[in-house]
């Protein structure tokens, strides 16, 4: 019975083979009882093997790639159980010794009473398609990995602006898991009161279907805070060319924009400071004449007369103008900080002692200071002014309230928690002044530190107090900022870098010293002064930078023993370098002075000798030259022994 069934199936095979010639598939037929597989010529051709009349099932199975055998067995087992045709891809060893991918489809052939007598099927060469699909899968995995590890966030939206796909970067950017966003509208993410840019984008997307790039949209983080997203996208089309949405990338540019704004603000303040400093002294001269003539006139009018009263008012106004100029000068006086070690806790105590007498008793003062706060380097008078101005400002904000609280906190913070550009060693003393007043309106917060910006009524404030704070803090390498305090009121925060311990750094390239000698660096170019100071600091010296020769002379004459050496530029307003050198030598004839000059014809070696300079350097000089000149000047016997290491 079985024979005839198999023979019948063999007949069928031949008939089907003819029919299937067109499909390019190979056919096979397997007899269970005889364990013989019969295949069509096309089958053998595909495997690159010589046709065999019949092969055993085991032999055939041995051609299957070892990694695919278990899968094959599982598929067959399932097939025998369910009797559903099977269809799988597997690798088979070809006549060339290489494996290729084939698609095998088949089913069992049943005889009388449904008994399985064999099975038959087709084989198709799918190697090229399979390789292509593997490559595609690898490529997909690669892009998925990239998309998911990006800190930026990749998204897709449909024609209704609803999200259809989001990468994990979303969690970092906006705090949502991708699943939370799928199906929600793009507009759900937008900061409610800043929807204009998003609505514009939505309109563009709906109407034009054109790619866009670099659009900035203020969005709301899951926790409510504002995140500025920069978004780019391009339209998506179905295979049929139908528009079906957009795909793009969004980056969080909140921090970048904030830093840019900070930089712009700093530049603006710098410009204003320079401008204010420039006009302030002219203004003093004008006021001198104005006030002088008013006073002269008052001598000639009868005391108690009406003109005398008017002149008195004019004098009072002039005095207010004079105070204002003094404040402008304080704001612009960035370079004349005389740095000493300042204990901020002590300054705060002093200010509060002064303030307590003048503050109404309805204002409670709370002072907290971390134990063992390190000192900062700065000008004690100016730091005093910073604390004073902030406290007075806080008091003003609480005026007219039945009660209030002024809180002053001092703490040590590290650079990581401050988002301030790093200080050398990353540690800051943080001063916080918090009031329970009216708080900060968002529109004024950005302008608080501008000179002449004030929210006080005319006559109650000049608008200089906070800009003076800003100027001083900046000159100390610190940061000042303001924000709405939790629970209302304003919070002002000042970060001042902790004084760096002098650590001598020896480098192989530059001669260095063991002892920390103090050096006064004088150059009217602040950048140059800073650069030289920085290099000298690296070499283990203690530099003091001065951007005015007159200021340098002033410092020196007040403490002639404070400096071991002076490095000065030649061309400077006020007092040129050679004249400064002559003045310094009047006070201390043995003081070593290194003069740097840009134009060789300005100062001859003869004049240098006459001035008894330790060294005359011509610009541009390299820092090795400067270091050697300083080292020789400080240890003159080195020169005689000739043991200076060459840079």
């Amino acid at each position, binding site marked *: 019975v079985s024979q005839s069934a198999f023979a019948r199936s063999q007949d069928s095979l031949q008939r089907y083979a003819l029919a299937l010639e067109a499909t390019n598939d190979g056919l096979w037929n397997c007899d269970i009882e005889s364990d013989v597989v019969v295949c069509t010529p096309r089958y053998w051709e595909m495997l690159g093997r010589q046709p065999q009349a019949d092969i055993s099932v085991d032999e055939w199975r041995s051609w299957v790639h070892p990694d695919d055998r278990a899968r094959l067995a599982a598929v067959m087992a399932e097939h025998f159980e369910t009797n559903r045709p099977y269809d799988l891809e597997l690798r088979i060893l070809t006549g060339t010794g290489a494996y290729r991918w084939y698609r095998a489809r088949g089913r069992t052939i049943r005889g009388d009473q449904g008994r399985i007598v064999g099975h038959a099927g087709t084989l198709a060469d799918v190697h090229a398609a399979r390789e292509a699909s593997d490559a595609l899968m690898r490529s997909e995995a690669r892009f998925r990995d990239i998309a998911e590890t990006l800190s930026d966030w990749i998204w897709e939206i449909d024609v209704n602006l609803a999200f259809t796909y989001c990468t994990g970067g979303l969690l970092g950017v906006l705090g949502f898991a991708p699943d939370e966003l799928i199906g929600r509208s793009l507009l759900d993410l937008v900061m409610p009161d800043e929807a204009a840019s998003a609505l514009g984008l939505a309109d563009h997307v709906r109407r034009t279907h054109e790619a866009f790039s670099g659009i900035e949209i203020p969005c709301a983080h899951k926790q409510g805070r504002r995140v500025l997203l920069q978004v780019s996208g391009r339209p998506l089309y179905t295979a049929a060319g139908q528009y079906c949405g957009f795909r793009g990338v969004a980056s969080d540019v909140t921090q970048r924009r904030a830093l840019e704004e900070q930089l712009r603000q700093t530049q603006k303040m710098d410009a204003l400071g320079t401008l204010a400093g*420039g006009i302030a002294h002219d203004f*003093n001269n004008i006021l*001198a*004449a*104005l006030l002088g003539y008013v*006073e002269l006139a008052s*001598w000639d009018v009868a005391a108690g007369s009406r003109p005398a009263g008017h002149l008195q008012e004019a004098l009072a106004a002039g005095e207010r103008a004079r105070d204002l100029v003094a404040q402008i000068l304080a704001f612009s006086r960035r370079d004349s900080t005389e740095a000493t070690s300042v204990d901020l806790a002590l300054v705060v105590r002093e200010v509060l002692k002064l303030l307590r007498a003048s503050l109404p008793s309805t204002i409670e003062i709370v002072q907290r200071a971390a134990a063992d706060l390190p000192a900062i380097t700065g000008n004690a008078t100016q730091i005093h002014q910073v604390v004073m101005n902030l406290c007075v400002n806080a008091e003003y904000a609480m005026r007219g309230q039945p009660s209030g609280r002024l809180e002053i906190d001092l703490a040590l913070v590290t650079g990581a928690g401050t988002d301030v550009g790093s200080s050398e060693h990353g540690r800051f003393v943080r001063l916080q002044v918090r009031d329970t007043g009216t708080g900060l309106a968002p529109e004024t917060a950005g302008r608080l530190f501008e000179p002449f910006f004030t929210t006080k009524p005319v006559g109650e404030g000049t608008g200089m107090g906070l800009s003076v704070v800003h100027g001083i803090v900046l000159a100390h390498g610190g940061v000042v900022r303001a924000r709405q305090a939790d629970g209302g009121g304003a919070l002002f925060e000042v970060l001042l870098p902790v004084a760096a311990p002098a650590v001598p750094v020896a480098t192989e390239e530059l001669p260095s010293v063991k002892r920390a000698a103090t050096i006064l660096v004088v150059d009217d170019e602040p950048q140059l002064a800073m650069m030289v100071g920085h290099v000298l600091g690296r070499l283990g010296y203690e530099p003091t930078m001065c951007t005015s020769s007159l200021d340098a002379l*002033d410092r020196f004459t007040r403490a002639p023993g404070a400096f071991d050496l002076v490095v000065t530029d030649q061309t400077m307003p006020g007092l040129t370098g050679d004249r400064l050198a002559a003045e310094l030598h009047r006070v201390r004839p043995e003081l070593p002075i290194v003069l740097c000059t840009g134009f060789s014809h300005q100062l001859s070696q003869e004049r240098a000798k006459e001035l008894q300079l330790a060294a005359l350097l011509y610009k541009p000089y390299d820092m090795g030259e400067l270091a050697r000149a300083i080292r020789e000047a400080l240890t003159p016997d080195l020169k005689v022994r000739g043991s200076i290491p060459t840079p």
Partner: protein
Amino acid sequence: MAPILVIDDDRQARGVVRSALERAGYEVREACDGSEGARLARTERPALVITDILMPNKEGLEVIRELQEGHRSLPIIAMSGGSQWMPPDALLRLATYFGAQRTLLKPFSLADLLDAVRSVLGPDGPTLEA
């Protein structure tokens, strides 16, 4: 009495000092920069020099230095409103270091000016009331 020499490049500032001093009974000479001031100091033999610090041609500090070297007992009052590079108090400190007896921070009151002049020349000079 020998005159008081006022050196300032600002005409109005010079004028107001002159007027106040004359009103108080002093005789006054004016110079509009450091060079002229130094020259007049030699030829006019003033009892006192009142000089600004930052001026064209020759600066006040140089004038003070020069006058000190030529005529050590000549009293000098320095006045300044500061400069773009330096606050006035620091400039005035320098002036003292160079040899000025008294300093005046611009803008100053004329009463302060006359106080300073009297403190240098002595109380026996002319007075407003005289």
